[in-house]
Structures are given as C-alpha cells and as structure tokens.
C-alpha cells in the first residue's frame, strides 16, 4: 500500500469497483518515488476542490496493477507514474511520468468539468 492520503486501490477487483461505482475517477499507479510523489501531492491538494472526482492510487509493483500496466492506453509508456482518468468506467485519458498541478487540472477540467458544474 502506498503511503499517501488518497483512497488506496490494491486489487483488480477494487479497481473495477471504483471505476464502475464512480462517474469520474483518477488513479495514479506508481511507487513512492521522485516522479510519482508530486502527482499524489497534486491529487491530495485537488481532492477537496474536485468533489465530483474520485482520486485513488495503486501500487505499480503489485501483480494486480496489470489492469493499468497492461492497458492498451499505456502502450509506449516508459515513465512512472501511469495516471489514468476514467469516465463511466472507460479510459478517457492516460499520462506517463510526472505531471504538475496545471497539467492535472487541465485534464480534469477537460474530461470531468470544473467543480461539479
């Protein structure tokens, strides 16, 4: 389990449940490393503001994380973390490597809208 204040997804079943039960979901699949931690930090900061989005993390090294690691949208990804955005259970955006707050905000606004509007 990752040491963040986000919702933790540890199994493929939990991943399926979270993307099916929430309309908008952002999952950051990574480690406690230099490229991943800033993304978790951004997510923790934005969680309060984007109440209509479910924010979660998933440990990259868990065999269960194959649902993200081996997803077609992750083809060509060669940098941690793999960050996936789901709407109604479908991937709408995926990024590889570190992202700053502006980049994450931009995707959240484009895909899910601002502040539950």
């Amino acid at each position, binding site marked *: 389990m990752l040491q963040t204040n986000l919702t933790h997804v540890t199994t493929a079943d939990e991943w399926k449940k979270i993307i099916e039960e929430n309309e908008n979901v952002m999952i950051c699949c990574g480690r*406690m*490393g*230099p490229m991943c931690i800033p993304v978790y930090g951004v997510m923790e900061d934005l969680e309060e503001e984007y109440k209509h989005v479910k924010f979660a993390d998933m440990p990259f090294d868990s065999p269960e994380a194959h649902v993200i690691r081996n997803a077609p949208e992750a083809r*060509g990804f*060669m*940098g941690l973390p793999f960050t996936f955005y789901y709407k109604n259970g479908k991937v709408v955006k995926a990024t590889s490597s570190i992202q700053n*707050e*502006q980049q994450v905000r931009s995707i959240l606004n484009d895909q899910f809208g601002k502040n539950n509007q």
Partner: protein
Amino acid sequence: MLVIRALWLGNQPARILYFITMENNRFDVIVLGGGPAGLTAAIYLSRARLRTLVLNIGTAGGQMVLTHEVANYPGVESVSGYTLSNTMKKQAKSFGSVIKNIASIQQLTLNGDVKQVVTGDGTVYESDAVILATGGRSRELGVEGERQFKGKGISYCATCDGEFFTDKEIIVIGGGNSALEEAVSLTKYASHITIVHQFDYFQAFEYAIEEAKQNTKISFKLNSVISKFQGGESFDGAYIKDVNTGEESFIKSSGAFIFIGYQPNTEVLKGIVELNKWGEIVVDSEMKTSLDGVFAAGDAIAKRYRQITTSVGEATVAALATAGWLHEQRRKKVSLAH
C-alpha cells in the same frame, strides 16, 4: 480582478468587498515556497504570532518529498521525505500558518513598504515582509522533442524508470556525479549506455568517473551536445552535435536519461532582487536580500551545499531576522507617531 475593476468603477458594495478581501489577504509575512526552508520559516514566524502565508507552487515539501529516505536529519532515525514534509506542513499549520497552493505568480512588487504578490488567478496578497524560499528543480535540456517524449523514452529518474529499458540501448546526458552514478546503476537494466557530455572532462568525483569508465556496458561521447530528440509513436534516438567540429550524428536508442543538475526557481525574481550569474539569490549572513524587508533561504540562494538541514538552518535565521526586522519597523512607526 473583477473586484478591483468594480472598485475603479466606483461601485460602493464592491469597494467594501475589496477591503474585506484585502483584509483577509493581508499578512505580516508571505513566504514564497513550501519546501523545507519555506515550512521552517512558517513554523518560526507563526510561533512568533506573526500572520504568515505560505504560497507554494507544486507539492508542499519541495524537493524533500522526492527523497526516498532521509537518514541524516538529526534527531530522526530514518524517515521518508514525504513523511517529513507532511510533518513540517502539519507543524506550520498547527501554529497558524496559512498554506496555499498556487499555479503561478503573475506579479511581484517587493520594493515598497507593502509587498504584493499577485497569483496566476489574479488574487492579490499583501504583507510587510517576504521570505523567498522558492527552491530549485531538475534542469531540462530545452531541446526539441524533450517534452514530447517525457515518459515515453525521456526520463529524469533512473530508479523510477530504469526497468522499462531492460536489454535496450539508452543515452545518459550529463557529466556530474548524478549522471555517472545513475549511468552505472542503469547498467543493471540496459544492454548499452552512451554517456553524452558537453565537455572533454567530467565534473563528477574521481570514484564515480572510474566506476563508469570500468563498466563495459558504458561508452562516452564527449564534447557533444544533444541537438534534438527524434521519434514517431515511440522514441528513436537523439541527434548529437560535436561542439568542436559542429558535425552532427544520430544515436539510435530506446531512451534518454537527463542528469544535468539543478536550477534555482528564480525566474520570477529577475530584475527584482539581486541574483548572481547562476540565477541564485544573493543574501547576507542574516539572509537579507538586496531589498529591505525581503529575506531568502533554501536552495534558491547562492551557497555551496544543498541539504535539507542547510535549508532548515537558513530558514530559521531568515525567520528570526524577519521577525526582528518587523519589530524594529513597527517600533520606529510608533516612535514617529509620538
């Protein structure tokens, strides 16, 4: 911004709203940056009952959060940088500091009695004093293709992304300790590594140079710079230019790791406070900058050693000096009034 425009139009309710807003956005001290320096300054300032605002771009904790294990912080046996950052943040908040994450700074006015910070969204914050603790970040090459292939071939972290390049040929760019040490660590995964460096010598310590030279998986391209990263759907390699002859060649590779040092986050301070030729903030022994009421600490200042402990120490001095300076300014105002 809307509030300010309405004020100019002479709108009375807006005028009242403006003053309420400014009252809430008025602090004794604004700290720019939420790394170990910024958070330490906030702890000391808020404990001294000074209204303190920390404006932070990115994740609070700065580069400290990126440290997997901090084992040399006195009094703490071993802790992750992430945990230490969260503890510092909680401490600062518990003493009353306000910590806000912002996307950018639009305007800085630091030369008057009232210091003003306008953030990217147009919000105006004011204070009597400012501590600059803007820290630093990994330096980017700034060449074509670098951003396009970030995470898809280009990386700044060997421990994070090394395994994606198992049995592949890669490039490492840089000539300092990080570049050479990380190149050696990447040989666990990569089949071959070409180190590209702009000089004909390395800046790294001798042991790191020797270790890299003795590794049969590593070869060197010295006096060379990257001119462009190339690829389509995937990364194909890099064009390198010989700095002496200008001759350009292409190195086919599956990825490139860039380790060319750190740069201070001081772009927004250019022309406002004195910076040295490397863009670092010039301070005196009390962490005073070239401007009255403006202090600085941490990795953005001109100094030789960059450690969490050095940032914490400098920030302590900066906060105490700021508190003393504010006290003196207020005492002068009172004596003038009498």
